[in-house]
């Protein structure tokens, strides 16, 4: 986790009327806690995760039981979330804090089908969790995430021309995506885009196990100075955890510096 975590006490002591957790996650096991009462919990504008699990102590049932809610851009938790001062022996004397954790799967050990662990390379945009908790009732809540822009130009060099360099871009719950490529390397580049829904398997040994992959743009050569665009529409292509984008150099010159291949990606919660 990004550490130390923000605490509710920090924001209260600074007379803020909200708590905001906005951090890249370091591991699929990251979990966060809030120890003050919130009137509403919602996904923040910068979140890559679309589903966040809220585990809270039960204010409307037996005191020893916790309950859960999944908050999404479409559904905030617009009701008081109250940590309990009780200590819970069943959980190792834990105090009754409210807990947040990503509900979407993130698999940092994913490798695309066909990935060669010796010659190919992969880099992730680490996904970000942005969660807001208001301390006072709000007249209205807008949890829709901002459109997000991802810009790339240079890439990790694979071992040789013909090997692959992959970039992984978060896409959780997005309904629309737009990708533009321009090849300014002076040589051909082969590009491919896949939609990825993760499993919990490591992909380094057996790449095919680590995700369900869907072809969004077949592997094809982009000539020097040429432009390509790819549009992803949830109603046509489905929804994905991440986009996997392959850049394959064709010439040894591209191994010294693999780029520039300007790439611009826009992802949106709005459908086309």
């Amino acid at each position, binding site marked *: *986790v990004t*550490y*130390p*975590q923000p605490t509710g006490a920090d924001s209260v002591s600074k007379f803020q009327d909200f708590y905001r957790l906005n951090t890249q996650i*370091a*591991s*699929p*096991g*990251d*979990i966060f*806690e809030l120890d003050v009462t919130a009137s509403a919990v919602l996904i923040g504008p910068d979140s890559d995760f679309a589903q966040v*699990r809220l*585990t809270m102590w039960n204010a409307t049932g037996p005191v020893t*039981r*916790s*309950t*859960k809610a999944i908050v999404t851009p479409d559904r905030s938790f617009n009701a008081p979330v109250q940590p309990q001062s009780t*200590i*819970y022996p*069943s*959980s*190792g*004397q*834990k*105090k009754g*804090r409210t*807990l947040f*954790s990503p509900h979407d799967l993130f698999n940092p*050990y994913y490798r695309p089908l066909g990935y060669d662990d010796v010659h190919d390379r992969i880099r992730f945009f680490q996904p970000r969790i942005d969660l807001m908790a208001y301390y006072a009732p709000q007249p209205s809540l807008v949890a829709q995430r901002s459109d997000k822009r991802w810009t790339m130009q240079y890439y990790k060099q694979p071992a040789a021309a013909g090997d692959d360099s992959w970039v992984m871009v978060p896409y959780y719950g997005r309904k629309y995506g737009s990708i533009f490529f321009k090849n300014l390397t002076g040589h051909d580049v082969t590009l491919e885009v896949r939609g990825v829904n993760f499993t*919990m*398997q*490591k992909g380094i040994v057996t790449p095919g196990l680590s995700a369900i992959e869907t072809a969004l743009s077949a592997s094809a050569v982009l000539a020097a100075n040429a432009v390509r665009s790819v549009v992803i529409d949830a109603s046509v292509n489905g929804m994905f955890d991440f986009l996997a984008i392959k850049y394959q150099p064709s010439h040894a010159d591209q191994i010294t510096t693999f780029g520039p291949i300007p790439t611009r990606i826009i992802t949106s919660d709005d459908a086309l």
Partner: protein
Amino acid sequence: MPAGSLQTAAEQAYAHLYPRWIAGTLDADMTAFLDALVAIFPLDGSPDQRTVSNWIVVGRNVVQETTIVDDYEFFNDAVEMVYRVCLAADDASIHVIKRITVPQAAAVLAAYNATLD
């Protein structure tokens, strides 16, 4: 076969919990796993330790919320909790600045192997 690392334990959670779900013992086995985690993290603990031990609260919630032990959601939620706590313990113990001790991380793996493998 016992998992040799927390990452392997996480990856194998589905396969290891599957026969317990089929046999109808998954709730008891999860409870045993959570009891073993409580023995490793018996107190409220520091904020560092809670980046792992807070998963016990989630695990108890998963077990408490199920009413039918062969429910697929229970199976999935149990697997996901085990997957995430193993990776949380791994991440908290592999960096130079550790949030839990290496023996605690080893104990989480041992708890997994003793109760779920």
